[in-house]
């Protein structure tokens, strides 16, 4: 039984956190509905009635194709990265092979290296292999970055998941692949979904990589379309706000969809501690 005082405290803290995270979003919303063409930031809620801004922005920013491009790239990256991260994380966590720690160290390096430090050589390399200015020029590097984190993430799960379950599967005659797919993957579903959400958010919002890689093509992602509303000298904040909302809506939808399938307490009853 939780004390009443604790319940109230919980609500207060959660409301505070909600306010802090929703506040800016609300600001952007008011901005997006403001009168277009006005200079400066206008947070006048009474004038926030210009719903036509969204349609204008959709047209001007060419958001239709941009969101389609973003969606293709991000979906491929999420699916491929999760599929690669799970077995790799299992191998690093539970299989014994020479060079295991070296490979893991290399992967950690992939997480630590900031994109900015390697974007130029990366671009040159991709160009050398004629992989620039198409979907692959963004997908391949994004998969690379994502898998580095994904292996780290899945390894952490497999390492601390019940060792005896894995051993029971081995003794039952399962090989590594069967142990992974039939015993561990069903247990790792929440971790895999969380990973998919993280991958989606990060790669959807990625700006620098697509900007560089797609600079010589007609392709543009949603964040690239968004930036066209940020003028060099004067910015139309109403349009910028509306474009921002359009850009983040797919992320919100994906988050809500995936969050619904998170399952909790799946390990209950397996292990008697």
């Amino acid at each position, binding site marked *: 039984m939780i004390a009443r005082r604790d319940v109230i405290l919980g609500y207060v803290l959660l409301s505070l956190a909600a306010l802090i995270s929703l506040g800016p979003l609300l600001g952007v919303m008011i901005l997006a509905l403001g009168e277009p063409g006005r200079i400066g930031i206008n947070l006048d809620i009474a004038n926030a009635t210009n719903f036509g801004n969204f349609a204008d922005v959709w047209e001007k920013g060419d958001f239709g194709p941009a969101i389609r491009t973003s969606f293709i790239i991000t979906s491929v990256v999420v699916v491929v990265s999760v599929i690669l991260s799970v077995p790799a994380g299992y191998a690093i966590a539970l299989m014994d092979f020479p060079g295991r720690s070296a490979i893991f160290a290399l992967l950690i390096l992939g997480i630590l290296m900031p994109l900015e430090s390697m974007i130029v050589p990366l671009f040159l390399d991709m160009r050398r292999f004629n992989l620039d200015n198409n979907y692959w020029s963004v997908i391949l590097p994004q998969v690379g970055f994502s898998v580095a984190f994904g292996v780290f993430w899945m390894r952490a799960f497999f390492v601390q998941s019940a060792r*005896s379950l894995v051993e029971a*599967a081995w003794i*039952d*005659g399962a*090989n590594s692949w069967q142990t992974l797919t039939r015993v561990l993957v069903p247990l790792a579903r929440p971790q895999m979904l969380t990973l998919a959400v993280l991958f989606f958010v990060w790669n959807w919002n990625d700006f620098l990589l697509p900007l560089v890689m797609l600079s010589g093509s007609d392709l543009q992602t949603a964040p690239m379309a968004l930036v066209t509303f940020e003028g060099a000298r004067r910015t139309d904040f109403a349009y910028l706000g509306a474009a921002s909302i359009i850009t983040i809506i797919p992320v919100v939808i994906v988050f809500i969809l995936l969050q619904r399938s998170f399952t909790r307490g799946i390990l209950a009853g397996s292990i*008697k501690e």
Partner: protein
Amino acid sequence: MSERVVFDGVSVTYPGMSAPALREVSLEVPEGELLVLVGPSGCGKSTFLRALAGLEGVSAGRILIGDRDVTRVPAKDRDVAMVFQNYALYPQMTVAQNMGFALKVAKVPKDEIKTRVGAAARLLDLEPYLDRKPGALSGGQRQRVAMGRAIVREPQAFLMDEPLSNLDAKLRVQTRAQIATLQRRLGTTMVYVTHDQVEAMTLGDRVAILKDGEIQQVDSPAAVYDRPVNAFVASFIGSPSMNLAEVDVVDAGVSLAGTTIPVDREVLAKVTSGRALLGVRPEDLDVVGSGVAITVELVEMLGADTYIYGRLSEGPLLVARVDPSIRPALGSVVHVMPSRTYLFAAEGDQSLLG
């Protein structure tokens, strides 16, 4: 098909550890035998089981199951079944799927899996629960599912890693009897690891006592109780454990707190340094009119027996298991005399009897 299990000079050293967890262990478990490995925690009994299962690599020696050398064979190909202390049931699978998993992996036809799972479930009273997940079962039921998962396989040997330690006392006694019956009925070789000497004594055809990675004695439960090879085995087997006291050798016996306890001359002749370790089981210590005087510190009444804990004028606490009609007051002095004694070397604690 049940097979014998042979350990031939097996050593296991864990990475980063200087002392081996198992030290040149040689042991044969004949086909169909139930061997209990018992010892204090860290003695290497679990390592033995894990090495046999293929979960731990060995640094020296050979392991045979039947006539097949499995020393380098991976766990999945050894055809042994193991029941884990925490049961390790697959949480996302039903009871039936848990029990049939090994058969499914081995590509046994569906009909046969169903038949074998059904038979095992009948044997273990699990039929009403076949469609439940482990999370919806009680501790005792989970334990039976773990057993069922092993039985269904019809393996060459069963490995049991403290399978009863998570059950409450009453259920433990029941399940212990079930396991013994089951093993006899199936006739499958079983290696059973426990730290509980009562389990060891009641279950085992033979008992192997381990300490510091070395086997101290392998014998029938009666023999390890009657003829322990050293003071460690003597004190480990039996409950409450054997009283041990360092004594001086005198004419025709040993002197315990001033009282001479008679000991055979042949045995006394083996004492080299003039000192020895006297062992007396609590059940061999009788309250008498005159004998070794002890000051009573604690009296435990268990119903059928009473345990008297008394201190010698100098030296250790002695435990006597006596008739419940004897109820000495705390702090009073009672006299006890052993009806049977054991004598161990003061150095190396080897038994000097027989």
